[in-house]
Structure formats: C-alpha cells, structure tokens
C-alpha cells in the first residue's frame, strides 16, 4: 500500500512528532513524505533520512507561506489518488489541512489515532481520552491525523531520493499577515523529556518565574493549565490538555494544577507524574506517581534548591 505523509516543518527541520508519525505510517505501507513550504529543501533532506521513508516530494512556492490550509490541501489533492492512506500530525498544522483534504475526497477523516490495528482499523481517544474507540473505515482512501505521543520516533537511514513536485493551484482565498512565534531557549513542549507545568495556583505571571527556575534546573520545557493561560500568566501555546497540547514526557511536574479531566487528557500518558498541590483532595493526585501536599511557594523553591545540591 502507498502511504502519503504531510510533514510539518519550520523550513530547516521537521517538527517534533513527525518522526513518530512516520512510525505509524510505516506500519501501513511504503511511505512517501510531502514537504511543502516557501523554503523546505533542508527539511526535505531531513525527512529523507528518517527510517522507513521511500521517497520525499519537495514543493517550494510563496503560496505556502504561513498555515496556508487551502493551498496545501489543494496541493495534496493533486496527488491524493495515488495513495491508500494520507497521514498528517494531529497538531494545529495537520488539523487545519487534513479535514479539507478528506472532505474534498469525500472521505471521513480519522482524527488523532493512537494505534494502528490494521490497514483500515485504528484506535482513537474520544471524550478527552476517557473512551478509546476502535474504528474501522470503509473509505477508499484513509485520511488520518496521528497523535505523536502514542508512537515511538522512527530512527535514521541512508537518505531516500528527494523529488520535486510542482506547486498546486493558488486559490487566493487567504492572505498571510504574519505570525507571533514565541522564542525560547527551553526545549519545545511536545519534544521535551521533562515538563514543569503551572496552574492557577501560581497566582500571577510573575510567579511563573518559580516554574521557569525549576525548569531550567532540569533542562525542562514549561507548560501551563488553561486557567493559567486564561489568567494571562502564560501565552496560549503553553496550554496542555484536551484542547491544548498533548504531551507524554518522561517526567511531568504539575504545580498548582487541580487536575481537571481536560488537563489530564493532555498529560496522563507521561511516564512519571509529580504533583505538588496544597489541597490533599486534588484530583491530580489520582494520576500522580509521586505527590506532595504542600504550599507551592515553599515547595518549589526548595525543590529547585535541592536539585542544585
């Protein structure tokens, strides 16, 4: 079977999660990766070196600036009929483009799969991960987004061939006006080995410095609950949860986070979970590997201190 993967990248590198997605794709057949953007050749070279990739298609054109959902979907449609499966990441990028592809092909997309059972059967979380549904698709082409945390990253290989693919039509429907991307020295949330997350209990944006100091000590990424983002303590892209980012690091430290199901949905597959909360009844403790009932303003500086010792 022929599988097409729409790879997310920043021009130079593949985004974290794409190699996990390629592990899922390789279970389904021969993988062709499509790397499209204003400048994408370095990312295409990177894709060629991921184990299991048979071929890379590179498309570069100004019309793929920004998210460009309409033009990207139109590009995928120029080659879609050659494939039995079309996969993309279950990230803001993949969620933006692939449903357009699916609807245009008259197929029902299978969102955010966490396991591949066979060529037509997949497992996907529903109800914020509280119900895992096994679904079988009868569509002729399967359009799928993949939850990166559910698959191991693929390894490396000698580079597969990279071919140019002509740009698709410019539909001219939207105009990119710019992006405000957060710059941080810390690891990216979805790629981090350790994440330190703060919630409403932090009390203010200023107090998030406590989280950042601990994160820096651990070489960790910083995350936040929705309440912390809504309160303006942290920008939106830090939100972990059902409607934010799905993460599964080796260590997740939740500080001043109560543990609402929507938050748990985004982090409960982490290997080790630590929770620090002053409320001994906080639901976060139900998923914690280690939990400490204490005031965070005392415990967090102490923890940072202890790690320096």
């Amino acid at each position, binding site marked *: 079977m022929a599988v097409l993967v729409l790879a997310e990248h920043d021009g130079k590198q593949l985004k974290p999660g794409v190699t996990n997605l390629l592990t899922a794709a390789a279970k389904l057949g021969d993988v062709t990766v499509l790397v499209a953007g204003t400048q994408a050749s370095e990312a295409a070279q990177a894709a060629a070196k991921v184990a299991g990739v048979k071929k890379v298609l590179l498309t570069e054109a100004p019309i793929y600036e920004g998210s460009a959902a309409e033009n990207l979907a139109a590009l995928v449609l120029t080659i879609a009929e050659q494939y039995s499966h079309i996969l993309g990441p279950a990230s803001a990028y993949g969620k933006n483009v692939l449903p357009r592809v699916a609807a245009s092909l008259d197929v029902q997309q299978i*969102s955010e799969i966490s396991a591949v059972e066979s060529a037509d059967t997949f497992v996907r979380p529903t*109800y914020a991960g509280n119900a895992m549904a*096994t679904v079988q698709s009868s569509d002729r082409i399967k359009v799928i987004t993949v939850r990166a945390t559910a698959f191991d990253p693929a390894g490396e290989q000698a580079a597969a061939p990279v071919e140019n693919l002509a740009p698709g039509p410019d539909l001219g429907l939207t105009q990119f006006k710019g992006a405000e991307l957060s710059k941080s020295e810390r690891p990216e949330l979805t790629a981090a080995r350790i994440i330190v997350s703060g919630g409403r209990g932090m009390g203010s944006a200023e107090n998030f410095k406590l989280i950042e100091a601990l994160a820096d000590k651990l070489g960790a990424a910083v995350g936040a609950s929705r309440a912390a983002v809504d309160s303006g303590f942290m920008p939106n892209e830090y939100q972990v949860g059902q409607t934010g980012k799905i993460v599964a690091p080796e260590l997740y430290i939740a500080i001043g986070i109560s543990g609402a199901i929507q938050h748990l949905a985004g982090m409960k597959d982490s290997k080790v979970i630590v929770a620090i909360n002053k409320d001994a009844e906080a639901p976060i403790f139900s998923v914690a590997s280690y939990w400490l009932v204490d005031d965070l303003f005392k415990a967090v500086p102490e923890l940072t201190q202890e790690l320096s010792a």
Partner: protein
Amino acid sequence: MKVLVTVKRVIDPYVKVRVKSDGSGVETANIKMTMNPFCEIAVEQAVRMKEAGVVTEIVVVSVGAMQSQETLRTAMAMGADRGILVDAGVDIEPLAVAKLLKAIIQKENPQLVITGKQAIDDDSNQTGQMISALMGWPQATFISNITVNGDTADVTREIDGGLEKLTIKLPAVVTSDLRLNEPRYVTLPNIMKAKKKPMEVIKPDALGVDVTPRLKTLKVQEPPSRSAGVKVADVKELVAKLRNEARVI
C-alpha cells in the same frame, strides 16, 4: 451581514464519562447534556458582532436528535435570531454533518459561518474545515480574534508556536478557540423570549444528503489506568524517589 453558527449538543464537560460494560459506547442515559463549549463561544461571538452592528441576523443550526432543540433555544436565549434543527438522529459523522450544513448554507447564504473548533465528545476537530472545503471558501481555524472589514475579515489564530494573523475573503468559515471570548450566561427573561423565536426542523432526506457512516465503531474501552502513586512527605523524599526509584532526573 448574516452569520450562521453551528451548535452541537454534547455530554457536559464536567461529567465523568463512563464506558458501557459491553464496549458499545459511553453511558448517555440520565446524563447532563449541554451545548458544546466551543459552540457557546461561537454563538457569543456572533451575538457580540450583532451588538456591534456588524451582523444583522444570526441563524443557529444543529444536527442531531430532537433534544438538540434545547441547545438551539439556549443559543437563541444568548441572542441568536432563529434556529434550524436537522433531525438526523444520533451519531452523525463530521463529513455528513458538513454536507448537511453545506445544504443549509446554500439556502441561507450567510457571509460568515462560525463553528466550534472541536466537539468535546468525538474530539474530531474537522467539521468547520470540511464545510469550508465543500463550499470552496476560505477558512480560519482556532481563532482568538476576528474583525470584519467589508468583504474581508482579519483574524488571529492560535497555533502551536504562538499566534498567526490572516486576512480572509468573505464568505468564509471560522472555528472558535477558547480565548475568542467568554460566553455570557443566559437570563430568565431571555430564555422566555427565546421560546418565541422561530425554529425549523428539517430531515436529512429533504436536503438530499446521504448520512451513512463511513466509520464502524468496533469497540469502546476505558483507557489503561495508571498504577497508584505514592505520597511523599517532603521535597527531600521527592528528589530521592525521582533520582533512585524513577531514575528520571
């Protein structure tokens, strides 16, 4: 301009969802239902645009069972002008919903369609994008801001790395993210007023749409549960456990 807002009736987000013991789905009997939170945000946005004089009429549409009329009434109590229920029974997939909504959009001719970014039951995050594709319209998903300027709109989208700004041609489909606004509470007088607002009920057949599912649910299971954790007495013990037992630091 006219705005069409889609609303879905879902299990209340704060209810603990239970998987049925026979693995056929989740328990829905006697469970509190509500408007999908992202749809509330979508309705609120339309109402604010009407209050600002940008929008003249708000039509709310739901695809589902007859009970979804309650959800439409709530949207009308928030300020929508009229409701349309596509009585399709239960468990309609996003592609079929998008096709039904396309048929309604072709009758209603709105300049803007606002959907939620995601229904919190199926967590599909597809329907808005699908409507937009079927209509051949621009889309702006996961928006946290929108300003209409004549026949275009400026939008801000929440993306993984931060924010993105787009100008989109109208008509278009946008999908609401959490920080677009905070929905108002409905008041009793407005609930009374909403009862008098027009509501139309249509069958899928009348729209010429085939709603046969493409996905067959083979089984539904609880997620694997985590093994019980341990309470630590203090920070020192926590660090010792992380170093020597879990070996993650």
